[in-house]
């Protein structure tokens, strides 16, 4: 089956299946950190720091405030790591793409297969985080306040798609693995801090306006609306924002990918 942009879905699925196969070897070892990480953040920041914030934030308990935001960042991390470091290593050092390219596959099929895998990783992270949030809710910390919260799972896929594509765009543009440190310290970390996960974006002048142009802000807004059960116009705008960005990047990124290996 051909997708727009002459992407062969069977070939993309074969690349996706390669990643599933490798993940199946190690999932027992890999799955636990997916639960630890959210738990540590939620307990450390939400319960620990939250204790000193008796008034909460925006009428919410601090733990309930940061829970959905951290969910969005977990979905981001799951995808973006796959399409940056992991993709670079597979392409450049393992020469895996050279091997795929010896089959009828083209680089765009491979890029799309890797993207599907990045989304899968976001779903796995998202699911782990969701389980922790649900457990805390049942334990008496009301984080997920509505059945709408189940839609956090598909939301993690949309966030994963957005960040998977952004990671690929960067990977397509660099020739040296060290350059990822710029991507992480100048793009991912500031977003993590200033997208409204830990405090409202309007804490700083023009904080809202600047954050509007960054993707994590929209992921956080959507996740917060789903967890609280109060779907707002802002949440609709943020969903559309991510869908549009995905559509634009999907049209650009797979075709921009260049096969490179360390020969």
């Amino acid at each position, binding site marked *: 089956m051909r997708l727009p942009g002459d992407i062969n879905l*069977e070939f993309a699925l*074969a690349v996706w299946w390669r990643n599933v*196969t*490798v993940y199946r070897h190690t999932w027992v070892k890999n799955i636990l950190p997916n639960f630890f990480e959210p738990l540590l953040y939620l307990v450390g920041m939400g319960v620990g720091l939250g204790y000193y914030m008796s008034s909460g934030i925006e009428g919410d308990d601090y733990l309930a405030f940061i829970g959905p935001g951290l969910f969005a960042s977990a979905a981001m991390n799951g995808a973006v790591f796959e399409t940056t470091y992991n993709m670079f290593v597979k392409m450049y050092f*393992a*020469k895996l793409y050279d*091997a795929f*390219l*010896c*089959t009828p596959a083209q680089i765009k099929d491979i890029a799309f297969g890797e993207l599907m895998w990045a989304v899968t990783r976001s779903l796995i992270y998202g699911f782990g985080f969701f389980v922790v949030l649900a457990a805390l809710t049942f334990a008496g910390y009301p984080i997920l306040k509505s059945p709408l919260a189940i839609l956090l799972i598909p939301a993690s896929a949309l966030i994963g798609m957005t960040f998977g594509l952004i990671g690929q765009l960067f990977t397509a543009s660099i020739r040296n693995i060290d350059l990822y440190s710029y991507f992480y310290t100048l793009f991912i970390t500031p977003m993590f801090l200033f997208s409204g996960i830990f405090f409202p974006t309007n804490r700083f002048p023009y904080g809202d306006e600047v954050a509007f142009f960054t993707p994590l802000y929209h992921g956080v807004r959507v996740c917060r609306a789903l967890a609280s059960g109060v779907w707002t116009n802002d949440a609709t705008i943020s969903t559309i924002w991510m869908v549009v960005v995905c559509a634009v990047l999907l049209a650009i990124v797979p075709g921009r990918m260049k096969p490179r290996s360390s020969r």
Partner: protein
Amino acid sequence: MSDVVVRASQLRRVYGDFVAVDGIDFEIQRGEFFGFLGPNGAGKTTTMRMLYRASSLDGGNLEILGFDASTSANDRQIKAKVGVVPQDDNLDQEMSVFENLDVFARFYGYSRAERAKRVEAMIEFADLQTKRNDLVERLSGGMKRRLMVARGLLGAPELIVLDEPSTGLDPRARQRIWEKLAELRRQKTTVILTTHYMDEAERLCDRIAIMNEGKIVALDTPTKLIADHVPASVVEIRLGYDQDVAVADALIGQAIRSEVLKDRVLLYTDDPAPLVAQAAEIEGALALARRSTLDDVFLKITGHGLGDE
């Protein structure tokens, strides 16, 4: 369908100011076992990469299995019918033998049942039945190379391109690879390969193109290459350490052609016996007569041996 599988004319590829392939012409017939022979840097790998569509052309025309390969437009159709065994080991180290083949078989449009059958057939071809669930990183060099060949054959290709399939293997592993290649030859698969090993090339290849500095300097059957370029026999005089080549001067005049190398003198002749007898009298040197090989052809054409760079 035409019997010409590959038709290349004035094929050219440039990297910066280095001309890797400098306007070469060749045609390869269906069922032929065709070898590219030459030292490192001669342009063999670049030629192979153009054939398996990993490199674009900077000039000339290339037709593969009836498809125009001068641009990348038909790459998918071409690659569906061309099996590739690249020079670098790019097996997936994180997967088992079976998984490597199972994943790569998914690119050839097989049904689930056909795929399972093809994968089993290839595990058997590579003699890796007992290793099927072992991770690739645990295989020996020879096993890895056989798996590379098996992976290249997954799509039941009409043409298979192998870039130095036996380089870097120990003699026994190399022998086994060449046995596998001989099997392909018996099945009349069209095979194109590159190698440094002239003895093997001579034994298996129907025709050989000798490459040097980006050009094809000779192209023919191994027998004709030898017959056309050098006399049938060589008397090789291996000199002792610090012995001057001048000790063989008297014999050089009696040969049809000679090559004076650093540590030995090669005397080409149709009648080796008298030369061997005389050479045996040179103290400290070892003389032996042998049949002329492609190495001698190469030496004559390029002025240096295959091993020299």
